[in-house]
């Protein structure tokens, strides 16, 4: 490679490793982001298996309700997807030092996510009580509740983490220095949203 030159060779003594010639900046990717992308890779693989199972078992139930009983939760999906936008706006405000706008948008994100979760709860209540579909009713019930539930679990985890940040923000502990950490968390939340796009398309559009 090109890192040669005489200046460094004079410096290098037996006590130290040879130096590179220049003090060129040595930058490496952020460990938090790389770690989160790796986690997203693992989560994607888990979701792929559940999505495969759902697709494979479409129409294979031998009895009980079919996906026709579902009605697309359009309002809830809109809430969840727009929470990604409020989250980005929130972190953008933190970057610019507007901690107040940051906190308001952060709480809005939290609220939108919570609406999605509560709405899913009501949807499930309707399915269980009115339609008689539980996880053990038939293959559709097993695969539907597992897939949507796995996603809901991820929403829950995201909400808990964001609530934790909200508590710290309430105590005035969140500053501009924490922006990179919040960005790592936002990667997770965006991933949860993208998964919902796939799940929604499969379960409520294609599979119905």
């Amino acid at each position, binding site marked *: *490679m090109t*890192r*040669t030159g005489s200046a460094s*060779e004079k410096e*290098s003594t*037996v*006590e*130290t*490793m*040879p*130096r*590179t010639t220049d003090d060129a900046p*040595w930058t*490496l*990717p*952020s*460990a938090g982001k*790389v*770690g989160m992308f*790796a*986690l997203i*890779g*693992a*989560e*994607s*693989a*888990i*979701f*792929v*298996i*559940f999505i495969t*199972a759902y697709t*494979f*078992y479409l129409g*294979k*139930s*031998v009895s009980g309700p079919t996906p026709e009983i579902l009605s697309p939760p359009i309002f809830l999906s809109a809430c969840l997807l727009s929470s990604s936008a409020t989250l980005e706006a929130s972190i953008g405000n933190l970057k610019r030092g507007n901690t107040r706008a940051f906190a308001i948008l952060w709480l809005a994100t939290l609220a939108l996510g919570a609406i999605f979760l509560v709405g899913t709860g009501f949807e499930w209540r309707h399915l269980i009580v009115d339609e008689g579909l539980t*996880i*053990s009713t*038939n*293959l559709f019930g*097993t*695969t539907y509740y*597992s897939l949507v539930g*796995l996603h809901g679990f991820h929403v829950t985890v995201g909400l808990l983490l964001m609530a934790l940040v909200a508590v710290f923000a309430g105590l005035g502990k969140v500053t501009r220095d924490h922006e990179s950490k919040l960005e790592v968390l936002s990667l997770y939340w965006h991933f949860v949203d993208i998964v919902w796009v796939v799940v929604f398309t499969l379960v409520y559009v294609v599979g119905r």
Partner: protein
Amino acid sequence: MAMQSMTLSRPPVARSRTDGLYEWVTTVDHKRIGVMYVLLALGFLVIGGLEAAAMRLQLIRPHADYVSPRVFNQIMTMHGTTMIFFVAMPLLFGFINYLVPLMIGARDMAFPRLNAFSFWLTAFGGLLLYYSVIGGYGLYGDGNAPEVGWWAYAPLTARAFSRGHSSDYWTLSLLVSGFGTILTSINIIASVLCTRCRGMTLGKMPLFAWMSATMAVLAILAIAPLTAAQMMLMVDRYLGGHFFDTQAGGSAVLWMHFFWIFGHPEVYVLIVPTFAFVSEIIPVFSRKAMFGYPIMVAATVTIAFISLSVWAHHMFTVGMSASSTTFFMITTMAISVPTGIKIFNWLATMWGGKISFKAPMLFCIGFLLQFLVAGLTGVMLATAPLTWQLGNSYFVVAHFHYVILGGIFFGTFGGFYYWYPKVVGRMYSGTLARWHFWLFVIGFHLTFDFMHIPGFLGMPRRIYTYEPGRGWDVWNFIVAIGAAVQIVATAVFILNVLWSARRGPLAGNDPWDAWTLEWSTTSPPPAYNFATLPTVKSRRPLWDLKHPEDPDWKYE
């Protein structure tokens, strides 16, 4: 070269032997976690090895009844699960944990606390598996081990056929240790990408780091599907789900797909770190730089990529469509191309080198020859018509033990002897190491060469006994004798490890005159690894240091 003058960090810090349990349990130091991984693996190696011995004893003659059929199934299940998840994986993670930060000139992994958490998840996963023996039916102290095979095919795992909780402990054990594996893999990827020392570009990383990162990516993509499948199994067993319930339209074959989409990449998860050991040892003991570094990296990544698309060659006998069978035949055969490239690169590294036949190199040569044979029987089994004949026979058992024992374990033993002086600070006994090697070679070949033959003669695997007069008796007898020799060899190994830790001569920083950064610090390294973080200019920083008149960076 006078190594004393080249000490690159401070003299050994008093790393007192009196550090108690508390320091070990609470540690986040990658080196201690690495050592704990290896010790955990060695403990389970003894257990898994005794289980293997019990099976070979049961099969030593026809109609033996040392163990009941049921106990045989349990031992078989526990042997497979233990050896893959609690011996091979922790052993390799231990090496990677210990060595990757040292090799890339870092003070620790990217996430030290996550690292400790991953280790304890793996350790508790192992305990959960064996807890089933006591707690399988609840807290009566009267349990049983899982008996569904390590692949746990449906519907064996349905509640009707697997009563009590033994299968649930198996599931939980793999879930918990699987989370540990995923988290530690994330850590390895982040460490390799984000903690390299100044000057160590991706093209200058030791092959060990490249292969560790590749293994970590593969482990994530392999273990995550297994985790998902185990969750589905839990839903079936506890919430009355129907994923694998054939009575309600579920599919037993889907479980096989999910299991093997984990199971086959898993083989490469285990063999890629072994490639890493061999790629570090062979150059040092041939006194030559690694031949074809970029091709080696490319071949590793290619293997990882192809290995994600070969899983259904485990299922040629379940009746897949002709097009699926052909697809998986072709991909399986394709993977032998990059693997062959690797073998030729190692041979080319040795070619014309000044080879020193010390224990690490002996094991690597054993690895090369045996892994080649394992690959050849692998190509045989990749041919679907041959699998229709040999599938589920002892030929398959011989093939994959050739891979795991003859390949993975030989390479790992080589790594064990190579880095032992670095980790312990003392040299192992060369005499005992040679005894270990030759006894293990003899035992291995007695067992697994001859195990192919009853496979050809039609002996199915997973049977607890067999009829006399089928021509299987003598082969099973030889196989059992070989197993006994392997036990003796392993005992010699453990004796060597324990004895040399106290009595071996001091090793010094760099007993092998090696070239990667871990040899520039003390043996054992201080908690902070390097007093000054190193800067590198080539793939062999210590060569540059020892040969300032002819450094590598002029040529790379």
